[in-house]
């Protein structure tokens, strides 16, 4: 499959040259028809007066779409020439865009159901600089997209081999499967997701749908039914009412679980994470197939997220940010926010070693924050507890609220527990932070990826001579803000910050 390395190419001969797939026209028309069909129905059915006008309007719209598509299809071309991907479009105003291959961070390939029928894909090319996609090639044949991806990967590998960070490996062309998620993994993923929310969402959707479709008389009948049963229940007593409530809640929970399991399976079906040299590749999806590849040396931050429920089962989620990754609202639905949706805790070390080959030998130990954090956290917790107690006493007008005071030792104990968890580790290559009590998170930043380092002291910090250290990186969309660690003694924070900045300034810049 692999052709010669574009690294050594003379800029004259294009390595790869192509146009959009002819189906661009057909699929584009189908998509626009689909978006027109719903507004069209009422006009065609009911609009006696406007029927012909309406049909004319839709005809015009369709012709307009077709013309745009034709222009786009005939004017769009792309090629890889020398070290650049060049796209060219436009009929009257020509636009030629040159994207240096080593600036390409991620290539995403998506294929929805319709596109799967014709075996064509949509390819999106991301760089660090641009907001959103740098180039969108819609649609290409699948083999063409694959060629494009490989050309870029080969270039990236050649670049990487030239630098010292990851020595060139003989097996560069072999694809190594890092992790494959089976149905069982996905069911577990669904069961441990935040399923109550999805249950509520689905109930909301059903309600909205029912609101549109059902005639009002059904509402009235349902209202009557509810009123009658509720009245009966109250007559039977509180126990029956509570039972009904519990059954209702359990029902919502079960619906939620089922929905989120189905969601997980559909979204992440056949999730496969592979590595080819420096390039990480993931593909997944039952209906819409998605694939994306990113070079692992571009990972700016990696987050090991152990949510509360997942932690109980020994599970974690891996998220990663590359530079300039911009989060879009739909990303979560597309599964773009995770590097690996679910991983068992005992395989984490092996996985991390794939993303950061030097992590295991980094030889750094975890350091705790200042023990003052316990006192401070306990104080804050007990103040909050006190306020809750006062509110409870004031509203119930009984002194039983004081019983809440029994929770104070628990608050203290929780803070002792978290003191033993919160911490950081500074090695020669990586900076790591760890936090959380019930749900935990670990951030790993390669030191060479750190940008501005900030040490901040609030007035409260100053009283205890503590500070918060945070490390800025070039991408933080999916890992949730700068990796940071609070409650460090000021001197220690400054020292860590200076060491980090010094090390970062010695490492070469690359994103």
């Amino acid at each position, binding site marked *: 499959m692999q052709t010669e390395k574009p690294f050594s190419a003379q800029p004259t001969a294009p390595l790869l040259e192509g146009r959009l797939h002819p189906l661009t026209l057909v699929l584009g028309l189908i998509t626009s028809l689909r978006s027109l069909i719903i507004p069209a129905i009422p006009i065609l059915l009911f609009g006696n007066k406007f029927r012909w006008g309406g049909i004319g309007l839709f005809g015009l719209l369709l012709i307009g779409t077709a013309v745009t598509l034709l222009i786009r299809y005939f004017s769009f071309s792309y090629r890889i020439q020398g070290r650049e991907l060049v796209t060219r479009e436009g009929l009257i105003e020509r636009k030629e865009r040159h994207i240096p291959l080593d600036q390409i961070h991620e290539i995403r390939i998506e294929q929805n159901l319709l596109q799967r029928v014709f075996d064509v894909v949509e390819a999106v090319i991301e760089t660090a600089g641009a907001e959103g996609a740098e180039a969108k090639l819609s649609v290409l044949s699948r083999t063409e997209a694959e060629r494009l991806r490989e050309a870029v990967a080969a270039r990236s590998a050649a670049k990487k081999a030239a630098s010292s960070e990851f020595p060139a490996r003989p097996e560069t062309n072999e694809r190594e499967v890092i992790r494959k998620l089976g149905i069982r993994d996905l069911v577990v993923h669904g069961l441990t997701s935040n399923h109550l929310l999805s249950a509520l969402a689905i109930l909301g959707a059903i309600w909205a749908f029912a609101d549109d479709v059902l005639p009002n008389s059904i509402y009235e009948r349902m209202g009557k039914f509810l009123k009658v049963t509720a009245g009966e229940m109250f007559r039977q007593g509180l126990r029956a009412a509570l039972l009904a409530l519990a059954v209702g809640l359990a029902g919502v929970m079960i619906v939620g679980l089922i929905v989120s399991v189905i969601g997980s399976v559909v979204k992440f079906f056949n999730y496969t994470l592979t590595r080819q040299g420096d390039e990480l590749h993931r593909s997944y999806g039952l209906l819409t197939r998605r694939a994306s590849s990113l070079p692992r040396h571009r990972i700016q931050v990696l987050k090991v997220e152990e949510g509360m429920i997942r932690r109980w089962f020994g599970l974690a989620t891996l998220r990663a940010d590359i530079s300039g990754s911009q989060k879009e609202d739909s990303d979560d639905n597309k599964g773009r926010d995770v590097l690996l949706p679910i991983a068992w805790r005992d395989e984490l070390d092996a996985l991390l070693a794939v993303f950061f080959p030097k992590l295991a030998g980094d030889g750094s130990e975890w350091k705790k924050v200042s023990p003052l954090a316990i006192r401070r956290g306990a104080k804050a917790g007990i103040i909050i507890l006190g306020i809750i107690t006062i509110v409870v006493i004031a509203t119930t007008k009984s002194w039983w609220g004081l019983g809440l005071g029994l929770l104070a030792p628990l608050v203290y104990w929780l803070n002792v527990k978290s003191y033993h968890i919160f911490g950081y580790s500074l090695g020669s290559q990586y900076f790591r932070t760890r936090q959380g009590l019930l749900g935990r998170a670990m951030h790993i930043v390669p030191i060479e990826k750190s940008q501005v380092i900030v040490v901040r002291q609030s007035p409260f910090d100053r009283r205890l001579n503590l500070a918060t250290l945070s490390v800025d990186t070039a991408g933080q969309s999916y890992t949730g803000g700068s990796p940071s660690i609070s409650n460090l003694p000021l001197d220690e924070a400054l*020292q860590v910050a200076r060491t980090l900045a010094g090390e970062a300034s010695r490492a070469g810049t690359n994103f």
Partner: protein
Amino acid sequence: MEARALVETTSQSSLEPFQPLDPRAIKLWRVAEQIAVAVFMLPSLIGVLISSYWQPKAAVLMIAGWGFLTSLWLWHSLWQPPRRYQAWGYRIDDRVLETRSGRIFQTTRLLPLNRLQHVDLQQGPLERMYGLARLELHTAGTQNASLTIPGLAHEEAVRLRDYLVALGDTDAN
């Protein structure tokens, strides 16, 4: 390669002392805040006078309140800038720029100089009047992507900028 102890890599003794900003920055900040006082308080005085005309009974109270707020703000404009100036400092070697600022929230920022993407030198009309400028240093970061040093003497800002840009050039080679 091997784990390095923290203490070895940072030799505290070699750190240069922090450079202060140009003292004219105090004047600049005072004038800037006083302009803000004028912009907000003069129109509100007109409002106060008009409503005093309609509500003569409350007039004294309203005018006194206005006077109190205005003088409080004016006092703040005199009191705060020297303290802000005191809190500000920066130092720079051939690798890292470090700034510290803020009195209530004290912040230290460290910028590894090879992370610098570009440097802006900015001068507003007031700053021009006082011969000052501010440097904006941009990185590829996200939440703390840029770092601003205000209140530098213009020549000093130009010198710093040229130094930083020159560093970037040698980096590229």
